[in-house]
């Protein structure tokens, strides 16, 4: 398993333009499969437009203590893109006035940003209804200075959403790195110990499941039930909900698909599983994504493809919700990942 990001390896796919070329050429250029735009035109859903803004998702940096094989951010210890306090200040101004009810902090490992705790404390004061931090779990056990994160999350009533690809060690470590499973289990126990994920607890702990290979996630409810049973029986761990998320064919997952000769089959699987009902609720219709350097995107995936919003407002410093709401969402073939089967978003299925 690689221990460096595509960027540090100078991999061809670290270039977003190259990724977009791959997604537009081959089976999509020769008409073997319809482009995403053509597909949503069939049901009069083109151009895709935002609905009410509900979620502001802020990526506070691409640095991470893990180098997961499927990571769409191409995050890792070698990534130095970190949101500055100045950009955080601009975000706070927006958070105070936004109509969104959910603030969603992501990364990388967001906790590795040196201003993370300050930012959480300031943002919590804005009184946002649902305040999510996407934690990779192992960060809690990575260093002594992070051991008190469960208490910190609890103090600010943070909704913790954590990745867990499988309830077995082998599958988890293959996707996320050696030793990740054991550390994740310990971190979940630490979170349970302060009340997170317990039945009836208002301290919300949800898990994210990403398939560990070139296949789509199964039924979210069935997976949740299997995860709950196995984690409780084997480790005494509790959590609230499981979000089944489809891997989108970009960045490191795209690199894996091509290297393993699975790209075409995977795109076929996504297109065959296309569900027009999911299109109506894809997350770009209710979310705005902010990058570490303050640029605005329709979603975290478009951020990683460097597809900035199609609006005259493109940066957090000039944020204007009314103008932003009146935009067309930028689409490409990777969008099929959010519309397959029951659909996929950072909050799980959508259809």
């Amino acid at each position, binding site marked *: 398993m690689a221990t460096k990001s595509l960027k540090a390896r100078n991999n061809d796919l670290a270039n977003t333009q190259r990724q977009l070329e791959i997604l537009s050429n081959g089976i999509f250029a020769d008409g073997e499969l319809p482009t995403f735009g053509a597909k949503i035109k069939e049901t009069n859903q083109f151009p895709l437009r935002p609905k009410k803004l509900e979620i502001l998702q802020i990526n506070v940096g691409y640095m991470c203590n893990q180098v997961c094989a499927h990571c769409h951010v191409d995050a890792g210890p070698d990534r130095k893109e970190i949101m500055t306090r100045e950009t955080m200040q601009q975000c706070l101004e927006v958070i105070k006035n936004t109509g969104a009810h959910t603030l969603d902090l992501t990364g990388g490992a967001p906790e590795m940003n040196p201003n993370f705790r300050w930012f959480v404390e300031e943002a919590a004061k804005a009184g946002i209804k649902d305040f999510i931090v996407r934690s990779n779990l192992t960060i809690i056990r990575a260093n002594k200075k992070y051991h008190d994160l469960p208490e910190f999350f609890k103090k600010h009533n943070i909704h913790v959403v954590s990745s867990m690809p499988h309830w077995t060690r082998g599958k988890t470590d293959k996707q996320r790195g050696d030793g990740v499973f054991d550390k994740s289990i310990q971190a979940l126990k630490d979170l349970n110990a302060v009340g997170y994920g317990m039945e009836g607890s208002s301290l919300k702990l949800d898990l994210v499941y990403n398939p560990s290979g070139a*296949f*789509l996630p199964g*039924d979210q409810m*069935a997976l949740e039930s299997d995860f709950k049973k196995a984690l409780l029986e084997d480790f005494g761990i509790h959590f609230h909900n499981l979000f089944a998320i489809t891997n989108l064919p970009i960045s490191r997952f795209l690199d894996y698909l091509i290297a393993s000769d699975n790209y075409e089959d995977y795109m076929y699987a996504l297109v065959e599983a296309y569900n027009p009902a999911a299109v109506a609720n894809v997350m770009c219709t209710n979310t705005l994504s902010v990058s570490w350097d303050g640029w605005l995107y329709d979603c975290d995936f478009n951020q990683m493809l460097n597809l900035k919003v199609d609006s005259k407002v493109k940066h957090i410093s000039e944020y204007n919700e009314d103008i932003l709401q009146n935009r067309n969402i930028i689409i490409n073939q990777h969008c099929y990942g959010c519309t397959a089967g029951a659909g996929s978003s950072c909050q799980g299925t959508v259809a």
Partner: protein
Amino acid sequence: MSKNYYDAADLRKFGKITEWSEELGNKFFEYYGKVFEEGALSAREKSLIALAVAHTEMCPYCIDAYTKDGLQRGITKEEMMEAVHVGAAIKSGASLVHGVQMMNKVNKLEM
């Protein structure tokens, strides 16, 4: 046309069999879909049975389809291999049990 008898890409075309007999094709897929729904057996159990039968029938398309289906359901490699062994055990048992017929015949023919 492919020079091979089996082509992995043909699995994607399975649905096209309805084009030459719409009524029977549709009836088959309707029946097929119904069979795999959650029932007295869970969809997960049915997937493992299908995987075992895929092997005894030695159908490469079915093996591809139900290996992927198993992974999607979070079924582990260990569970899948055990299911394959169940199929293989029945298949070999089905051969071996005919040994009784052979023994019967020998006993009848020999003085």
